[in-house]
């Protein structure tokens, strides 16, 4: 009884930490899908790209992975802005985003994954840092630092985005463009530029999420695909565009996955997120906190 209690508590704790991390992973999609209505299923590919970049500079130059990701932020932002520009010109402007836009992002996902396989191979890669290895003990709870640090950074990132969206002009313009593009135009703001900025930010978050991912677990190119379901499950469950909803949904998913993994084995874990996604879409597509 005692053992199983501590097992459950540890699973929940791990789940909450994982959930915090998932929130950062999902933050980017909250912006691109929740606010801009762009179904960027290639987002996990950008995250994995971030992981590999962190790996490269960590393995070859010993740089801390989180530091790498912060330095990489502008590059990822530019990449995101460029991708949006192509997406807008080729699809959004022509009203073709439903079929061809999706195929476009799927192609990007695919190309990124296969390119990484060609460059780095299919072996698992991992990073080294001072906080990877040691654990902290609080009572019966045993949490590895390599879970705590990403969770903390994730929550900071998440908080930063929330502040940005509610307090800055551009942030509020992004919220506005998701609700009434026409009104924004009448105010003299170029909605395309705002969307480009938003998408750039969305991809920039992937840089950080990627570094955090490779801290938590070893990475190989196809890991991205597991995250597609997680990310969209959290987005939909949390209610599109609602940042607090996303956080709660992320925590919930983390805990459920962790408990499933502990009691039924890790090979069932991918099914949790995707199964949850299917159920949500089928029965409550507006999300938990949906209107």
């Amino acid at each position, binding site marked *: 009884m005692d053992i199983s209690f501590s097992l459950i508590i540890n699973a929940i704790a791990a789940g909450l930490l994982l959930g915090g991390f998932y929130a950062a992973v999902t933050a980017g999609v909250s912006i691109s899908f929740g606010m801009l209505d762009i*179904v960027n*299923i290639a987002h996990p590919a950008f995250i994995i790209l971030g992981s590999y970049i962190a790996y490269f500079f960590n393995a070859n130059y010993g740089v801390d992975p989180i530091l790498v990701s912060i330095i990489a932020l502008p590059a990822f932002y530019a990449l995101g802005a460029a991708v949006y520009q*192509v997406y807008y010109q*080729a699809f959004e402007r*022509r009203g*073709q985003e*439903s*079929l*061809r836009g*999706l*195929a*476009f992002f*799927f*192609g*990007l996902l*695919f*190309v990124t994954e*296969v*390119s990484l*396989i*060609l460059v780095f191979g299919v072996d698992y890669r991992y990073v080294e840092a001072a906080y990877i290895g040691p654990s902290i003990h609080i009572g019966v709870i045993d949490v590895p630092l390599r879970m705590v640090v990403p969770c903390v950074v994730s929550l900071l990132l998440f908080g930063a985005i929330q502040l940005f969206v509610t307090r800055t002009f551009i942030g509020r313009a992004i919220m506005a463009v998701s609700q009434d593009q026409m009104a924004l135009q009448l105010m003299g703001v170029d909605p395309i530029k705002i969307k480009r900025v938003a998408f750039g930010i969305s991809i920039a978050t992937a840089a950080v999420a990627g570094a955090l991912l490779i801290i938590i677990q070893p990475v190989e190119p196809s890991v991205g*695909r*597991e995250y*597609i*379901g997680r990310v*969209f*499950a959290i987005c*939909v469950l949390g209610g599109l565009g609602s940042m607090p909803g996303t956080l709660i949904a992320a925590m919930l998913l983390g805990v459920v996955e962790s408990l499933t993994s502990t009691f039924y084995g890790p*090979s*069932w874990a*991918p*099914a949790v997120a*995707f*199964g949850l*996604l*299917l159920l949500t*879409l*089928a029965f409550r*597509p507006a999300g938990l906190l949906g209107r």
Partner: protein
Amino acid sequence: MNRVNTAKFALITIAVGALVMAFAHWMHVDYLYFASYTILQFIVLATAWNILGGYCGYVNFGSAAFFAMGAYSSVFIHKFHPLPVPVLIVIGGIVSGMVGFGMGYLTLRLRGSFFAIATLALAVVLQTLVVNWDFVGGSRGAYIIRPEELEFAGITVNYIEYLFALMLLLTVIALVTARTIERSQLGFGFATIRDDELAAEASGVPTLRLKLIATSLSGAFMGMAGAPFPYYIGYLQPSSAFGLEYAVNSIAMPMIGGTTSWVGPLVGAVLLGSAQQYATVTISSAVNLLIVGLMLVAFVIIAPNGLVGLVQERLRAWRRPS
């Protein structure tokens, strides 16, 4: 070309298929059989995908799941009592068709993008279920020993040729079905869903019902393509049955070939399939997939109506005196 009615078209495709069959038999190079079988499989998958994707505008990212379900229903039945492959094909079609219907019923009331994400989710859930299901081999895989030959009405046929002939027949059926739909009232209804679903509803088109028909039909054909696969390949693993190349090719082939008619998936599958067979042998399978991905992205941006669209534009420009 428009005057060719369905019966004539069916006969033409069967004749072409018979010619292909005779040629392959005469050449009798095993590798050619394998390569052609794969291409035929892709023609069916691409045509099936296009019924939902090209005609209705709903993207299915989980083609591999429907294909694999056909394959795994064959494995499942084989463990009890092997049935003739044509029966397995029908069963595979029914199983995948029902899953398509079920999933459609749950998610087709939502936007197209939600449906697409749901198909992705379905693929992973099903793969996870299969990986954890030891009866059909789990992650270790399942062996299916196929007979060397088959007795049929007194004639002994090489089993590979038999499977090839079945796949050829399935391809003919898929193409005839796609073409018939395209020209029928159903095809018209599909096009309105693609063009403007809201206006379609307002004009009296029962969009949900039509979408369910498309999803079920599309899933069924994919399952039918998958049913003979374990016999063809001898050893079935989840990673190969649910392989990414099925998902990406069933999207890339119609989009590159052209999504608005039955010709597109055929053209895309033949060209892209042959190119990939060549590339896999000469370069590597990873590079081959990379090229498919790049071509998909390029075509989707530059030539939204695919190769067929490009040809049509060329013809239109040529016919119009400037």
